[in-house]
């Protein structure tokens, strides 16, 4: 309990909520009070029951037992988003916007203002412009959603919620895909909403952000309520401990020193491609090379150009000392260079299919025997991958879309490792996955590098770049601004290079 503070009555409270799916219990008597003008963070590992609790709080699911109270009154929330009528709005992680429609049309979707039976576009435009000015978002009501950045889309969702007079705003990982600058802007909006008396519940895996923005923190673990504390009493470390239930001293594996004279596995000189200007770097055998920078700094673009996903206009690439020019992903793969995408749902895995076809897809030519596919070899590969990468599925025949994010990420790593690469490029290796699985992934990466594979880690999470990499390349606006080694690999150095405050002279 926050002492010495004025405690207002909760708008929305969960009292002893339990939920089972069939015979599988996922929440055990969880209680949570949400007060006006308060930011309440909900944290826990993947599978802890956060999403289920959020869906119950917003009426998308009904609890198996327990009560939901709105303004102190026992209420059965209507499903399918109808809780918006009582002022409870859930913003899904996958934003719910009609991409081809304008901002204004989206905000008023489903409750358009009418005048004599015809849409009153002028009134709607004025209203939306008012909201946009309110939160300081520099877009026009006539902009098409598909032309906006992810952060801007997120803001549009918030505008939509504001226009519905939301009293409780529940957000599922709103900052997962935002850059640090965008996150700051987002937090500014959150503070403004808070000042207006809106209650905000949000889920995040980024504990530093939780510390920065929330007033209250509720921790769930395995469906159990672990505790609710004032954010100022917690540090990111203590939150992580509560989530995991154990000490996380060895989050990062010990780094092996790389032989400075090790052979160069990859040598990129003066690479030019869309969004990339004159990028030169090299990668040694067995090295873990970090790529840091703000989102949009061109890190992904560099490697899409290197491995044949996009065209490059100039520059040379030496692979094991020999010139390489990959025109297709298949050519890069056959040479031993693989790229693991950061977008596992859209570009990484076939969510509607089972684990076996997903695992073998990337290295499929390896599984061809004669004319046909060797199913036994595929099965054996899946068994090996499940063991090696500790992929946990209730049932091996489950659709990949039903796996947790952490298990999907492990499967994706197993998929690209199926073709025994010599260079592995991992883009955002731990986006949206819990601390426990993160730790596992870091150890896998270190083990892969220890076997002599060269690894590139592209990440927007500074701690993982610092904890994992031997050297760090920092990019800004398509150019490399610095390559850091040893003691220089620390947060403030990286930020200086990423923000353009400092840059190395390049020849």
């Amino acid at each position, binding site marked *: 309990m926050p002492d010495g503070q004025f405690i207002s009555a909760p708008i929305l409270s969960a009292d002893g909520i339990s939920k089972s799916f069939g015979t599988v219990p996922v929440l055990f008597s969880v209680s949570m009070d949400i007060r006006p003008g308060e930011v309440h963070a909900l944290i826990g590992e993947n599978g802890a029951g956060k999403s289920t609790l959020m869906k119950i709080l917003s009426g998308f699911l009904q609890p198996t037992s327990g009560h939901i109270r709105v303004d102190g009154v026992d209420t059965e929330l209507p499903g399918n988003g109808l809780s918006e009528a009582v002022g409870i709005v859930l913003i899904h992680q996958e934003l719910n916007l009609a991409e081809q429609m304008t901002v204004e049309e989206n905000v008023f979707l489903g409750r358009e203002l009418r005048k004599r039976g015809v849409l009153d576009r002028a009134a709607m435009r004025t209203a939306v412009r008012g909201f946009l000015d309110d939160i300081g978002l520099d877009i026009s009501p006539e902009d098409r959603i598909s032309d906006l950045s992810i952060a801007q889309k997120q803001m549009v969702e918030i505008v939509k919620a504001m226009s519905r007079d939301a009293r409780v705003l529940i957000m599922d990982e709103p900052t997962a895909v935002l850059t640090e600058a965008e996150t700051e802007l987002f937090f500014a909006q959150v503070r403004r909403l808070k000042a207006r008396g809106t209650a905000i519940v949000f889920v995040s895996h980024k504990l530093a952000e939780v510390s920065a923005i929330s007033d209250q923190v509720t921790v769930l673990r395995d469906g159990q309520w672990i505790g609710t504390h004032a954010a100022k009493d917690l540090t990111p470390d203590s939150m992580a401990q509560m989530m995991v239930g154990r000490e996380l001293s060895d989050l990062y594996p010990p780094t092996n020193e790389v032989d400075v004279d090790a052979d160069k596995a990859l040598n990129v000189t003066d690479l030019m491609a869309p969004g990339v200007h004159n990028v030169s770097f090299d990668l040694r055998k067995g090295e873990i090379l970090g790529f840091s920078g703000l989102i949009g700094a061109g890190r992904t673009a560099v490697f899409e150009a290197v491995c044949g996903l996009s065209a490059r206009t100039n520059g040379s690439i030496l692979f094991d000392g020999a010139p390489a020019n990959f025109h297709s992903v298949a050519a890069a793969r056959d040479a031993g260079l693989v790229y693991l995408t950061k977008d596992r749902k859209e*570009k990484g895995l076939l969510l509607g*299919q089972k684990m076996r076809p997903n695992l073998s897809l990337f290295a499929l030519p390896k599984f061809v025997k004669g*004319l046909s596919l060797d199913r036994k070899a595929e099965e054996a590969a899946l068994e090996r991958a499940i063991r090696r990468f500790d992929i946990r599925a209730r049932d091996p025949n489950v659709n990949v879309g039903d796996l947790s994010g952490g298990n999907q990420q492990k499967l994706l790593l197993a998929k690209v490792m199926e073709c025994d690469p010599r260079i592995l490029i991992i883009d955002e290796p731990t986006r949206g996955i819990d601390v426990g699985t993160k730790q596992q992934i870091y150890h896998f990466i270190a083990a892969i590098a220890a076997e002599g594979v060269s690894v590139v880690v592209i990440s927007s999470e500074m701690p993982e770049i610092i904890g994992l990499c031997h050297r760090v390349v920092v990019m800004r606006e398509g150019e490399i601004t610095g390559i850091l080694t040893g003691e220089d690999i620390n947060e403030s150095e990286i930020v200086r290079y990423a923000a353009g405050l400092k840059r190395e002279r390049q020849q």
Partner: protein
Amino acid sequence: MTEITMSTAKTRKLIGFDLKTAGPAIALLILCVIGFLLNPAFLSEGNITNLLTRSAFIGIIAVGATFVITAGGIDLSVGSMAAVIAGVMIIVMNSAVGTFGTGVTTVLIGCGCSIILGLGAGLVNGLLTTKGKIEAFIVTLGTMGIYRSLVTYFADGGTLSLNYDIRGVYRPVYYDSFFGLPIPVWVFIVVAIAGWFLMNRTAFGRYCTAIGSNESVAKYSAIKVDRVKALTYVIQGLCVSLATIIYVPRLGSASSSTGVLWELEAIAAVIIGGTVLKGGYGRIGGTILGALILTTIGNILNFTDMISNYLNGTMQGLIIIIAVWLQRGDWGRNKSAD
């Protein structure tokens, strides 16, 4: 979600087979029973052979369509393509008579010409959709119009007829039997088996499914998306040319009304068979059943006076809608899901 998956898994184990997969087979069985009850002659050997022969055209084309649709495409041009290929075949054979006589050589020249045209027309569709980056619906709507008007032009608005002597040589390809089954049925069987193998047992089939499920995932998984997609249209073209080769000797002529609405029947067969129209899941076995179902409906209507034969289209339409409704598989489950 969890609940539903678990309960369907249980049902599957109990019944021993998947109702969705067996649906088309059950539907065909029911149709056969109805046909038999209406007129026992339905199950006579002559009628069954006739039925199988009739379904061969649509069936062969639909096998190709299964690949196109599974990889997320659509080909509306197949009916017109068949007509123009038939037309050109006849012109080529008629003009080859002077040089090669009225023997088997001329027929083989016609068949070779059909296959080249089929592969070429498929490649055009494939390249326009992939390299040209035009939507498959638009491309094949365009080529559909082009091929249709070309056959009308070649026939000068009338009918192209095959030289009478060649007709005699070519005739057995449609009318003769081999081990008790008409030759078109054998072609259908071979195409079906080859298609099934290609779809279910080869890397190519896996690639089609992956592209239809999610093209980006396919691209990032080192699949040459454009090449695979273009190949599905080439396969479709090959299937059309094979169907045309066995169709031409049936009437020995081609006109602007040849192959009208075949594209819709082929797509219907594919969908009735359980392949998903937006791609990512293809069933060759289902497609074969779908083609048989469509032909059986027409056949039953021929056998009975209860419903006018002119209502064939109505019955086919109803079957398509019912089939897809049944495949949704969530009827009656709406309440328990919430």
